[in-house]
Structures are given as structure tokens and as C-alpha cells.
């Protein structure tokens, strides 16, 4: 039996979260005695796709049809179902994102498959197939048994630990895949795509430096950006900051914004309202810098500094630069 893993591409490269999904799928394959097969849709070089082998995939199905170059969850879900049928896959794995959830949902409905989104750890396969997922925006976890024959899992970032040093040197075989594309999946037309290409995406970032109202105004953001650059981090913000238009909406982290799960989250001048914490509680390590020692965020932090962000940020930036 094969495990099918869908990988998202970004300018022809497999996204980091998708490589985690491949590693996760390969582990599930070894648990259940199958092999991990990857599906990639849109433009990508063979050399890039072969990399999936290092994370445990045996084979990559690649549909290079130019119609699939632009993200289209309807057509992508169709292609996913066709790949699953061709490979006889009973377990389908995607990484959590707007696209991942949309494809997973439509594929699950087509395949009459049970779907669990937000999975945080490898499944238990002794006596039923059970997965644990984050609920209440990370305030709790649920263990769920999937009863259906075909199972669709959407995994959260950090659902599996990847040891980059211990990756295999194996390459996956890349096979051309030609799904039958339906006209009805292409009736919508894309008017415009507005994407900040140069910025590191929050969902993918290993380190995030984030600012709140304590940053006092958009014109004071530079020290935060400097630290982010020195650390190779993405920048985020709290809801009040995006509501005030100090920073763009896509940087808003929290319950009603983006949920992130970086290795390191540095919060500058964010008091830590429960709605903000809900968006960051998947982070491995949280640093809070705030002038108010009573800020609730310190209770959720691993490291804290009480003081003026504008004095502290440059010191951190200097120390981060000397690290390299």
C-alpha cells in the first residue's frame, strides 16, 4: 500500500512544511508497511523533486501541465484523487495551509474519506488508526480515531521532528503524471495576485520577530526589522497593529489571523492577549520583550526581558550579527 503526500511548490521549490509532510508520510509508510509517494503539481525541476527522496519518498508523481502552474484548489484536488486512485493510496497527507485544507476537503468528499486537519503527531496504528490534533487554537488536543477505509490527514507544522543532519542521500524517482483536467475546475479567472515575493512567509518561517502596540507606530519598526534580518526571521504583528494599518494584514498573527509555529518567536511590545497567544502557542520557544512586567505574555514565555524595546532590540541585533 502506498501513502500519498501532496507537496506545495513555491517558485518551483518544495515548501519546507511540505518536506515535513514527506518525512511524516515516510514514517507512516514504515509504520503501516507501505511506501511514500509524493505528488507535485506545476512547474518544478526534476533535481528539486528528487530531493523528496532524502525525506523518505520513493517516487514523485509530477504533473507539469502549465494549467497547473497557478494554484487552483479545485483542479489540484481532482489531481490528488486521481493520483490516489492510480497508486491505490489509503492514506493521503497534506501540510496545513489554506490550499492544503481546501484540497484535502474536496478530495475527502470525492473519496468518501475521513478527514482530520491540524494533526500534531504521528498516528497510533495499534488497534485502530488514531491521530492527535490541536483544537481550540492550540489550547487543547483531541485524539480521534479514523474509521473510514481512506484517510486524509492535514498535518500542522512541527508534527514531526526532522534531523537535517541525518537525511538520507537517496533520490526519489520522478515520474510524469497526467491527470485528466476538467473544464469545470477552471471557470474562475484570476484577476490579480499580489504577493510579496521577497518576504519570508510566516507559515514557513523558523524564526519570527513580531511587534505590538508597544512599538509605538509604523515609523518605529526598523529596529525590529533589523533584528529579523540578522536572525533570518520573518516579521509579524499583533491584531491592533494590523487594525491600525501599521503593518499589512497578512502579518497579523493570532486567533483570527495567521497561526504560526516557528522554532523561535520573539514578541516585542505585545502584551499577550489570549487571542494573540492562540496564534503562537505552537512555537517551540517564546521570547517576550515588554516594558510592563505584568504583561500576561510573560506567563507563556520561555525567556523574558522587562525593558524598553528600542534599547533592547539593537543590543539583540548586534549580538545576533556577531553570532554568524
Amino acid at each position, binding site marked *: 500500500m502506498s501513502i500519498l503526500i501532496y507537496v506545495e511548490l*513555491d517558485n518551483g521549490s518544495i515548501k519546507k512544511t511540505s518536506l515535513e509532510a514527506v518525512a511524516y508520510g515516510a514514517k507512516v509508510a514504515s509504520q503501516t508497511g507501505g511506501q511514500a509517494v509524493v505528488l507535485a503539481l506545476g512547474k518544478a525541476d526534476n533535481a528539486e523533486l528528487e530531493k523528496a527522496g532524502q525525506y523518505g519518498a520513493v517516487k514523485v508523481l509530477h504533473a507539469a501541465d502549465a494549467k497547473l502552474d497557478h494554484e487552483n484548489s*479545485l483542479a489540484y*484536488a481532482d489531481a490528488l484523487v486521481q493520483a490516489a486512485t492510480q497508486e491505490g493510496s489509503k492514506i493521503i497527507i497534506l501540510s496545513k*495551509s*489554506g490550499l492544503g485544507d*481546501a484540497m*484535502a*476537503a*474536496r478530495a*475527502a*468528499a470525492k473519496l468518501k*474519506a475521513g*478527514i*482530520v*486537519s491540524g494533526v500534531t503527531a504521528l498516528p497510533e496504528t495499534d488497534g485502530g488508526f*488514531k491521530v492527535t490534533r*490541536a*483544537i*481550540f*487554537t492550540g*489550547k*487543547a*488536543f483531541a*485524539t*480521534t*480515531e479514523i*474509521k*473510514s477505509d481512506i484517510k486524509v490527514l*492535514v498535518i500542522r507544522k512541527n508534527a514531526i521532528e526532522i534531523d537535517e543532519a541525518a537525511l538520507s542521500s537517496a533520490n526519489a524517482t520522478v515520474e510524469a503524471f497526467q491527470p485528466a483536467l476538467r473544464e469545470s475546475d477552471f*471557470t*474562475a*479567472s*484570476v484577476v*490579480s*495576485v*499580489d*504577493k510579496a515575493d521577497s518576504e519570508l*512567509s*510566516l507559515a514557513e518561517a523558523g*524564526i519570527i520577530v513580531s511587534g505590538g502596540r508597544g512599538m509605538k507606530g509604523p515609523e518605529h519598526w526598523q529596529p525590529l526589522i533589523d533584528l529579523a534580518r540578522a536572525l533570518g526571521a520573518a516579521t509579524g504583528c499583533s491584531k491592533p497593529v494590523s487594525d491600525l494599518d501599521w503593518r499589512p*494584514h*497578512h502579518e497579523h498573527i493570532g486567533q*483570527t489571523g495567521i497561526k504560526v509555529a516557528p522554532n*523561535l518567536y520573539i514578541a516585542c511590545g505585545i502584551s499577550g492577549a489570549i487571542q494573540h497567544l492562540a496564534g503562537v*502557542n505552537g512555537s517551540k*520557544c517564546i*521570547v*517576550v520583550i515588554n516594558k510592563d512586567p505584568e504583561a500576561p505574555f510573560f506567563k507563556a*514565555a*520561555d*525567556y*523574558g526581558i*522587562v*525593558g524598553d524595546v528600542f534599547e*533592547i532590540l539593537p*543590543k*539583540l541585533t*548586534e*549580538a*545576533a550579527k556577531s553570532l554568524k
Partner: protein
Amino acid sequence: MKILVCITNVPDTTAKISFTDNDTKLNKNGVQFIIGPYDDYALARGVEIKEQNGGSLTVLHVGEADAEPQIRKALAIGADDAIRVNADPQDSYFVAAQIAHIASQNSYDLILMGRESIDYNSGVVHGLVGEMLGIPSYSPVMKLDLEGNNATITREIDGGKEVLKAHLPLVLGCQEPIAEWKIPNMRGIMTARTKPLNVVEPVSVDDMTVPQTYKLPAPKGACKMIPASEAETLIKLLQTEAKVL
């Protein structure tokens, strides 16, 4: 224009979550329930569209009778009538199957809901419903404009946004800033009392997933405080102690 808005009944964002019955049930004691915040955006936009284009707006909830105050609130905000599918849903697939069943009997032009429920956070019901009905689904939608049967949709994508033109009927998962939340006025509250709230029994669906147990995260260890005067030592600690750099 026939609009269906699906709402969830969820603990308030600030609710303290705990479980009972050997960690198999949510402890609802002392928990304030609300219309899902994302669903509230969907409802607000639905009401605006109905006011501009005429037509009807039905609000749908799949769940038990304790959600009725929230359903009445949706009626007070501007829905014309409501349907409650009387069930204690176990997963997204079940909820989606109920919505699709109701929708298949009523040919709605627009089915709106939140991008995800804030209790189980799956964000898959709109996709499931779209596929079950054989119509497109998009999420998360930040802006929706209609011209006849054509919709212009602004959707958030990883690191930016995308504008699409699509034809009705559509299923859309909504989020801010699609509309401002609406607060019911006195007249709305009065008329909501007499608007129809139809309770229907669910259609049967095979068990796809069955929740077993719930648990809370392990408590966080104490926060290590670093004096501001030695702020730069943090970077070393992050590297050698926390091992995240």
C-alpha cells in the same frame, strides 16, 4: 438572490477550556457560547448583500438546542429564517453532509460560512460542502462583490492575496475584513422572536472519524527573566540552552 449562512456555536475566544467525563467531553460549565467569529463576518456580509440585491437569507446550524440563543441572534442581525439540524456532530464530514443535504433541496446562490470554526479549527467544511454539491469553494475570502451572477473574490494566500472572478453558485469561507460585525438592534431582536426556526432531523452519514479523548497541553515551565542591561546574553542562551538558533 438566495443566501445560506452556516454558523457554528462555539466557546468565546477568552473561554477557559477544560474537559469532563474522563476527558471525553468539553466542560460547558460556565462557558459563554457565541456565534463563531468568522461566521459572524459571513453573516454580516450576507445581510449586506441581501439588503443590496433583495432575496432571502437563511441561517443554518448543525447542532443541539442549546445553540438557539445564537441562532436567534443571527435572526436579529438580519436572517429571514433559520434551520437547525438537530444533532451532536462528531466531525466536519457529518456537518458538511447535513449542509449539503439542506442546500441540495434549496438551490442557494451563495453559501457563506466562516473560514473555520474556532473550536475544532479544521477549516474544511466549505471545501467538503463545495465538493458534495459539485460547485466551487474558496477560502479565506476577505472581500466579496457581486454583479448579477458574477462574484469578485479577494482571497488571502500565503504571503499576500489573490483576486478571482467566479460564477455563482459558490461556497465561501469568510474572514475579516469582508464586513464589519453587526450588532442586533432592538427592532431586530423583537422581530427575531417570531421568525421561523425550523428544526429538522439529520440525514444519516457513516462514521468517518470518532473523537476519543481530549487533553490540555502540559503546563509551561517558568519564564527565565534576563535583566535589560544584559539583553545581549539572550542570543547566547537561545543558541546554547534553548538550541533554537
